[in-house]
């Protein structure tokens, strides 16, 4: 590569360069300065939605985004006031989440929704609390977020202990109705934020619920594991009758494949987290994907709004099952619109007060409806048990919110055509 000849250093040249350097700096600052200052207070509510649409959690963030796309239409049909969505990508990074939240508020967002990841949600919560802008968390299970005494942070999603408690309750219900109870289980969990939260809450809750099985082995694995053959081999060798899981999507697929290849047929797969019911799982594994039970926050298939959401969802996204990501993202926006209607103002403080007194019984998730306790947590949420069957998801428990019966024990993999 040839060297560029240095231009002579006449005073003119330096001044020009200095000028362009200065102009460049000014331009950079202008570009960074927020455009679109806050406009008049009337009109639609400006809701900033923060999701990890790129980076490690891109798949989940983009899944949640689907609900954001269809929400405004449904909310209008329900007679709720309009909301204007401002999208932001947290890039699965805490720094970026915080910056984006600040930027959204500077650009006039009156309410924030997000952010799936517990780390990002914590960072955004701090910004929201500081600025006095309400923040409705769609999905994040780490307990500490609502233990900080925040006045502007609300979470319409169960905490890890809540998910576990309902999981055990539902399991016992299913064991009774199907007549199959495993005596021993192997507990496998992914070693990330969610998996470890669940694993940490487990020992405290087991004795309370009198679960009928023993955990004979606990195996934790790296979320970025490329190969889970060793883990599954260990699980198989432990002699457990069933598999108790907390995993993510990729590991769910990997583990199932290993179960088939290593010829181990657990009587049941009891998953207390994402992965085993997701579209990608069902599509990739086909018939081999049937059978696992997932104990997750879910929609109530018998509620009116659920059917409305499912119909609206099926149009732009045919072939994709409605799942946790979309349900709770939608409900977060529902909360925002509902609060806006009751507060009759887009002043953040009024909105926060309105959210605190939320009582939406005509909602999608299971339970008496959306209400918040003093800490800003919806502690009335109930979790369901769903089972994969023929590429579809059947809600099998709790009884009052189900649309099918469970099939246990799980059909052995080598007998599935």
């Amino acid at each position, binding site marked *: *590569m040839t060297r560029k000849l240095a231009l002579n250093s006449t005073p003119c040249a330096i001044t020009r360069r200095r000028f362009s350097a200065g102009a460049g700096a000014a331009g950079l600052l202008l570009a960074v300065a927020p455009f679109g200052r806050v406009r008049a207070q009337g009109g639609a509510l400006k809701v900033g939605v923060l999701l990890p649409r*790129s*980076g*490690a959690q*891109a*798949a989940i*963030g*983009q899944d949640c985004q689907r609900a954001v796309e269809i929400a405004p239409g449904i909310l209008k049909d329900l007679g709720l006031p309009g909301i204007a969505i401002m999208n932001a990508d947290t890039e699965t990074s805490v720094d970026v989440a915080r910056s984006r939240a600040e930027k959204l508020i500077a650009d006039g967002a009156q309410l924030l929704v997000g952010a799936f990841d517990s780390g990002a949600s914590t960072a955004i919560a701090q910004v929201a609390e500081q600025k006095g802008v309400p923040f409705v968390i769609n999905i994040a299970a780490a307990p500490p977020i609502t233990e900080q005494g925040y006045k502007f942070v609300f979470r319409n999603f169960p905490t890890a202990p809540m998910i576990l408690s309902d999981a055990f309750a539902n399991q016992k219900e299913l064991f009774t109705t199907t007549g199959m109870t495993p005596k021993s289980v192997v507990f496998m969990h992914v*070693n990330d934020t969610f998996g470890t939260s669940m694993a940490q809450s487990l020992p405290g809750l087991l004795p309370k619920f009198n679960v009928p099985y023993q955990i004979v082995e606990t*195996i*934790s*694995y*790296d979320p*970025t*594991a*490329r*190969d889970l*053959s*060793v*883990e599954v*081999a*260990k699980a*198989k*060798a*432990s002699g457990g009758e069933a598999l108790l899981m907390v995993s993510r*999507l*990729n590991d769910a*697929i*990997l583990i199932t*494949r290993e179960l*088939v*290849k*290593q*010829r181990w047929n657990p009587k049941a797969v009891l998953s207390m987290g994402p992965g085993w019911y997701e579209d*990608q799982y069902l599509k*990739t594994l086909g018939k*081999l994907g049937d059978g696992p039970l997932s104990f997750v926050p879910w929609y109530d298939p018998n509620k009116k709004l659920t059917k409305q959401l499912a119909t609206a969802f099926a149009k732009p996204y045919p072939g994709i099952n409605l799942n946790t990501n979309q349900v709770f993202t939608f409900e977060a926006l529902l909360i925002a619109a509902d609060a806006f209607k009751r507060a009759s103002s887009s002043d953040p403080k009024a909105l926060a007060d309105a959210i605190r007194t939320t009582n939406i019984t005509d909602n999608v998730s299971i339970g008496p409806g959306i209400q918040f306790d003093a800490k800003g947590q919806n502690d009335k949420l109930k979790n369901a048990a769903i089972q994969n069957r023929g590429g579809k998801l059947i809600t099998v428990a709790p009884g009052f919110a189900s649309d099918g019966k469970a099939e246990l024990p799980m059909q052995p993999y080598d007998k599935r055509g």
Partner: protein
Amino acid sequence: MPAEIYLNVAVSGLLTGLVYGLMALGLSVIFGVVRVVNFAHGEMTTIAMYIAITLFSALRLDPLVMMVPIAAVLFAFGYALQAGIINPFINRPEHSQFILLVAIAIIIVNLLLIVFGPDARSVQTSYAYDSFQIGALIVDATKVYAGVATILVAAALFAFFRFTLIGKAIRACADNYTGALVVGLDVKRLYALTFGLGAACVGAAGAMLVLLVDVTPALGPAYTLLGFIIVITGGLGSMPGALIGGLLIGLTEAMAGLFFAPSAKSMFSFGLLVLVLLFRPQGILGRRVA
């Protein structure tokens, strides 16, 4: 724990390690000759995997069969990258090379995200769930096929470097840069060729990896790191070393996962790496660099 589990895990680890070794082979070739630290190695592997998936979903052709065309595409990519962008950086300090390749890696990862989306993709071959049973040993069929393919590719590569004129020329460049110039070798072209060859290895490895692992755009960095661990353990610039390194790392990780907490099994690879760096930096089969 029953005895056969150790055998099963060990065999599985060795076979997987073999395929990782092939990926690392590309890195070894590139670093051994061109002396560029390719921090975009994992991303190149990811590109190869996505190509395999696209071809499979479009043409229904088995990745093992598609290995050759995919390697060819990656060869072209590597050649162009080296000749076009990387060449001026060969004699620059490592940190410059590093940032250059990091920038390339960022571009690749996010382009893949935009084009293919974030969902994990995979290839479902007819033999995807087959396994061979020999007594108490249950071996995953896919891993066996991939392992065999790796050995064939590696053998072809060794033969190339041993017996062809170009191969010898490349080795000359690696051994003595000035000498090669003196003898009249077109070093720039040979460097580009070598980078291309390294990329072709990555292409072949990627085609095989797609049978074992699901692809996401963010898969790259883990493989880059793995590649470096293997290459340094086995010996930078030594091709058999890369394969041996792969086998060793595959085995270590598998056994560590079995004996200790699987979530900590990578720690053993890193521990091994540190030990090698301290006590035998040229790696197991490498030659001591002056």
